[in-house]
Structure formats: structure tokens, C-alpha cells
């Protein structure tokens, strides 16, 4: 990189082997550059987001009216299952890994990720996994229809699509584990001199903890679905009652993975919001240390709450009480975070550019999802609303308005650094307002549907649910179309737009804003000194 000098102006005499990126397709196939891989992850997740979104629109189309209009019930179940799997494992998780790849080396002053070639592999494993998922729609019997949780005994019975789904999950799990090992090693070993752990940016902290969670629970998921696979084909009886197994045990093993997984999908979002809010309030993040401890507490507590997904499986009352109180305890560190963000905004000189709009929208709507989570945690209420649309509303409030809005916020915040161009502010604001309004039109009525007793995962429903379902379907199509605005904004920012300097946001802080925009192909080859 003799042409593009590194930001500190040190000159290099040793590096004629570093140039810009090679051109053509092979650049992307063979790249070991963290920025390229981050870009690949982000595009992959966006494509999967649109795929999962189309499946969701298929669901909402069918539910627009009572009765069976478009799909038979088997295909409807495939739609709900694949929507869940693709959004969780194909869209949200890879998007956060994309952010991690782009930002962690820039934020800690490292030249690249610790294991650059493994990084390439963890991305390219995702592509065959996604292809397996999509292909499974076209095999006899169709895709897996057991719900994204793949509960036994449904999952021990279905056709070939289930096996393809299991293999896809295995591959995605391996990819996540490799990505996490990379992230933990990079953060622990490659921070710039002077950057102690407690000086590290919040995004890196939340990802460090998330990566540990992934390393701890992804192997458990792999175990659970391997047991399903051997039950299906190799005569074991882990979940087959006739052979001495127990289908409820699948739920225990799955949720031992599944609940930490919930936090895997939200902790990096907390990290992004903890960057955006201080930047646009033009104040330091309030309570940095308490943010770190709150994140860690959430991660530790996430291992002892799994059975709150299973209150209706016939658990002793003492077990229900334990899991209820443990779950409610998580509201404390989460509350610490929300109050810290609000305290950061307090008396700040706030402006509301698109990243800040999404961040404030996140705090508002995510907190609503958090409150419905508390309601679901109360055992007697949960027994009423288990498997109803109330639960659907709850987890879409935290996953769409939580994780996804944080991803949007982060994209708008860092896209000037990624592309060197300012995005179109008008379109960005339109994207925000369309998203948050249509989001609420889609998911708010689901609370009422759930309280009135409408079960989830059904293609047809009693006529008294018709009005709210029609409203939700209209909202869903509005929300889906609004995301095309985002695509336009991103494409426009890549192609051109106002050129930005090193630091386009006056309140932004961190090492990533000390390098030029767009960030050169190689950065921090000489580690910066952090005071």
C-alpha cells in the first residue's frame, strides 16, 4: 500500500506485495481482507433478508383472509419454518458478523482479523448452506416444516427437506464457530498498544461476549440436530419415546442453545446503538463500565433461563418459579442499558440524522418488545399465551425493531466510512419512517390477536381474527416494500454522492474515524498508539 499511505503518515519500505484489491470475481472468492469479507457478509445477509422477507409475505398473503387462499397447509408450514431459519441464520447473524469484520479491526487498530484465511472460509461456507436451504423447497416433500426450532417428534419424521435443513444448520454452525474464534482471538490478542479492555469500544465488547456465547452454544445445537439426524437414519432413540427417548428432551437441549442465541442476535445490536447514540447526542456514552457489566450479566443469565420457552411441557412448579424469576432478572441489566442510552441523550445536543432516528426508534420499540417479554416470562400468563400471536408479536418487536433496526442504524452510521460517500439523507429518513410505521401496523395488532387466542403457525383462522390479520398483512407488504428504499440508498452511496472526510459525524469517536473514507484496503499496518 505504498500508494495509499496509512493515516499516521508512516512510510513503508517493505510492502510492495500490498496493493489495492485484485479485480474481477476471484477477488471476492479468494479474498482474505477483512473489509472485503465484511462486505460479502453484508450482501449475503441482505439477499437472505429479502429471501426470508418474500417467504414472510407469502405467510401474510395467506393470512390476509380466513380460509385457504394460496397455499396448502403443508406449504404454509414450510413458509413459516424457512422464514424463521433464513432470517435467524441467514440474515441477522451474518449481518452482525459482517459488521464485526468491517469494524473490529478498525476499532481496535488491528491490520486484519487474526485468521484471515479461516475468515474467508467461514464466509464461503454460508453460501452452500443457504443453497441447501433453498434447494430443500424443491425436493419431494418440500422443505422442513417443523418450525425453526425443529422440534422432535416432527423433525424426526419429515422427508428429505429435513435432512437438507439439518446439514445447512451444521454448516452454518461451523461457520459461526470459526467466525467467533476469529473475533475472540482478534480482540484478545491484536488490540493496539494502550487499548486496554476497558477502553475498548462498546461494539467490540458486545461482540467479544457474543462470540463467547456462540462458541459455547453452537456446538450444543450441532449436537441436538445430530441427534435428530441419527434418530432419523441410524436407529438411535434420543427423542423417540418408543425407544426410551423423550421428545421433550429435544426442547431442553434446543433451548439451551436457543436462549443464548436470542442474546447473540441482540448484544451486537446493543453495541451499535452504544456508538450511534453518543455520536448524535454529542456526549460520551453514559456509564461505559456499567454497560460492559450489564452485557456480561445478560450473557451469563442467558444460560439459566432456557426452560421459560417450555412452561407448558409439564414442569414441576418449583422449576417454573425458578425459570420465571431468572428470566425476570434479565430485565435488570437490560434496563441498565436502556437507562444508560437515555442518560446519554439527556441534555445532549441531539440531531436526528437517519442513524440516530433508527437508534431512537430501536430504543423505543425494542423496549416495548422487552416489556412483552417480561409479560411472557410470568408463568401463569405464559401458559395462556404460549404459541399464540402474542409471542409472535413479542419476538418480532425485539428481532425486527431490535436487531434489524440496529443493523440499519449501524449501516447508515458507517456507510460513509465504507463507501466514502454520504448516503441520501432524504431517502434514509423516508426509509426510517416507512419502516417504523409499517412495522407497528404489522406487529402491533398481533398482540391483540394473541390475547384473543389466535394460535401461531396456522394457515387458517376463526373469522373473528380477520380484521387484525388484514391490517397486519397490509403492514407487512408496506414494510417489505420499504426495504427496497434501503437497497436504493446503499446502491446510491456506493455509486456516488457527497464525498466525506475522515470523520463525517462531528460527535463520532473511535479509531475507525481516524482513517480516510472510504477506508483504504489496508489499514493500521502500524498499530496506532491509544492514550
Amino acid at each position, binding site marked *: 500500500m505504498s500508494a495509499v499511505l496509512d493515516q499516521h503518515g508512516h512510510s513503508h519500505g517493505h510492502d510492495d506485495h500490498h496493493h489495492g484489491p485484485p479485480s474481477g470475481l476471484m477477488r471476492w472468492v479468494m479474498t482474505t481482507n477483512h473489509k472485503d469479507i465484511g462486505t460479502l457478509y453484508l450482501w449475503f445477509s441482505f439477499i437472505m433478508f429479502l429471501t426470508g422477507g418474500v417467504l414472510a409475505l407469502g405467510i401474510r398473503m395467506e393470512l390476509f383472509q380466513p380460509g385457504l387462499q394460496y397455499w396448502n397447509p403443508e406449504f404454509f408450514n414450510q413458509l413459516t419454518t424457512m422464514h424463521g431459519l433464513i432470517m435467524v441464520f441467514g440474515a441477522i447473524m451474518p449481518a452482525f458478523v459482517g459488521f464485526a469484520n468491517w469494524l473490529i479491526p478498525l476499532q481496535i487498530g488491528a491490520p*486484519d482479523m487474526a*485468521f484471515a484465511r479461516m475468515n474467508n472460509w467461514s464466509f464461503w461456507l454460508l453460501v452452500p448452506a443457504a443453497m441447501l436451504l433453498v434447494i430443500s423447497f424443491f425436493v419431494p416433500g418440500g422443505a422442513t416444516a417443523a418450525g425453526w426450532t425443529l422440534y422432535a417428534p416432527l423433525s424426526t419424521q419429515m422427508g428429505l427437506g429435513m435432512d437438507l435443513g439439518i446439514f445447512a444448520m451444521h454448516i452454518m454452525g461451523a461457520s459461526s464457530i470459526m467466525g467467533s474464534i476469529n473475533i475472540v*482471538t482478534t480482540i484478545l*490478542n491484536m488490540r493496539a498498544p494502550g487499548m486496554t479492555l476497558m477502553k475498548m469500544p462498546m461494539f467490540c465488547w458486545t461482540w467479544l461476549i457474543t462470540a463467547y456465547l456462540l*462458541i459455547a452454544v453452537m456446538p450444543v445445537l450441532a*449436537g441436538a440436530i445430530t441427534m435428530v439426524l441419527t434418530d432419523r437414519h441410524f436407529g438411535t432413540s434420543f427423542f423417540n*419415546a418408543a425407544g426410551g427417548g423423550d421428545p*421433550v428432551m429435544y426442547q431442553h437441549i434446543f433451548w*439451551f442453545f436457543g436462549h443464548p442465541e436470542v442474546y447473540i442476535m441482540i448484544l451486537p445490536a446493543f453495541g451499535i446503538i452504544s456508538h450511534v447514540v453518543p455520536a448524535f447526542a454529542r456526549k460520551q456514552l453514559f456509564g461505559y463500565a456499567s454497560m460492559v457489566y450489564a452485557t456480561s450479566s445478560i450473557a451469563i443469565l442467558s444460560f439459566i433461563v432456557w426452560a421459560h420457552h417450555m412452561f407448558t411441557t409439564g414442569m414441576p412448579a418449583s422449576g417454573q418459579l425458578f425459570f420465571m424469576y431468572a428470566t425476570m432478572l434479565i430485565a435488570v441489566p437490560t434496563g441498565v442499558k436502556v437507562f444508560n442510552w437515555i442518560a446519554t441523550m439527556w441534555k445532549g445536543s441531539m440531531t436526528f440524522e437517519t442513524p440516530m432516528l433508527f437508534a431512537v426508534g430501536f430504543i423505543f420499540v425494542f423496549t416495548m418488545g422487552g416489556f412483552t417479554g417480561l409479560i411472557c416470562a410470568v408463568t401463569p400468563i405464559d401458559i395462556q399465551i404460549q404459541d399464540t400471536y402474542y409471542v409472535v408479536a413479542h419476538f418480532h418487536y425485539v428481532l425486527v425493531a431490535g436487531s434489524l433496526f440496529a443493523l440499519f442504524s449501524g449501516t447508515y452510521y458507517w456507510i460513509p466510512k465504507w463507501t466514502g460517500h454520504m448516503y441520501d439523507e432524504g431517502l434514509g429518513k423516508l426509509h426510517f419512517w416507512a419502516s417504523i410505521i409499517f412495522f407497528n401496523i404489522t406487529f402491533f395488532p398481533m398482540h391483540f390477536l394473541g390475547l384473543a387466542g389466535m394460535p401461531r403457525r396456522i394457515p387458517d383462522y376463526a373469522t373473528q381474527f380477520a380484521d387484525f390479520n388484514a391490517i397486519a398483512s397490509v403492514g407487512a407488504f408496506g414494510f417489505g416494500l420499504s426495504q427496497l428504499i434501503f437497497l436504493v440508498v446503499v446502491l446510491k452511496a456506493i455509486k456516488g454522492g457527497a464525498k466525506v472526510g475522515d470523520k463525517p459525524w462531528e460527535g463520532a469517536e473511535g479509531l475507525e474515524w481516524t482513517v480516510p473514507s472510504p477506508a483504504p484496503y489496508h489499514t493500521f499496518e502500524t498499530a496506532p498508539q491509544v492514550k
Partner: protein
Amino acid sequence: MDSAQAAGNRETRWKLLVVVLIMGGFGYALVPFYKAICEITGINELVKADAKPANTQIDTSRKVTVEFDANSNHLPWRFRPLTGSIEVHPGELVQVIYEVTNVRDRPMTGQAIPSYAPKAAAQYFKKLECFCFKQQTLAAHESRQFPVVFVIDPDMSKDVTTITLSYTFFEIAGKGNS
């Protein structure tokens, strides 16, 4: 990246890979752990004889209707109770007969799994004798009658007036069905 740092990175990677392996093993260790918990707490013992309730006084003040149901899951067996339903007093020892016929030309092995509705009644329904306590092998075209002996614990809530006992026979693959 200098070589000292690369070596440090490799060391971290090995440590993390060990954690991955341990957690994979932990996932499988949950299986015996789960069985142990169920055994200690006495939940989910579907295919074991229950102890007779300590208080064997017959509660003649009320009657409970017990309905019998029989299914087979992918198993070509004809399986039915000889009695559709009976009325019993809690605490009373009752015997009913189920009949199973293997309609195939080859011997087959199956295991019956009971389930109860309402769920709250399950823990008060004590089976003292049942064909579900072990796997059953039936020769080709063999027909057999099995008794089920049970007591309903008088401690059961008075709100429960009907209990459905449903058995499902599952094939045990690889046994006697070559």
C-alpha cells in the same frame, strides 16, 4: 502480524477449539443428565409400574369416567381395547383388556407408550400392570390379549371427571422383523 503474535493467536485458537469440543460433549451429556433428573424427581416414568397409592380407601362418593384409546404408529398391528370406557371410583383396583393382532406374515416387535388427557390427571393414574412396561414381540398373525391394572389415586382433584388413557404402539426397528 509478527510471528510472536501469530503464535499467540494460534494458542488462543486451540484453547477456543477445546471449548467448542467440550460444549459439543456437553450437548450429549445433557441426555444422561436429563434422564437422571427425571428419575430423581420421578417425572416422566411412563413405562414403569407405579407404586400403589398409600391410601387405598375407595372414594365411593364420586365416579370418574375412564376412556380407553389405542393407536399404532406405522405398525401394521390391529390394536384395540375391549372396553371403550368404564366408570370407576378413585382408589378402586380396575382391570381392562387390550387386544393386539399382528396382521403381517412376519414377527414384529413394538413398544406401547401411554399418554393421558387431561395432563393434570397423569400423576394420579397409577398403572400396576401394563403391556407397556416392556417391548412386545408378536409372531406372524398372532393375536394376544393384555390386561391393564390401574388405580386412580383418591388425591386427584375433584374437578377431573373424565380421564382418557391413550396408548400408541411404535415399531422397534431391527427386532424380529427381518
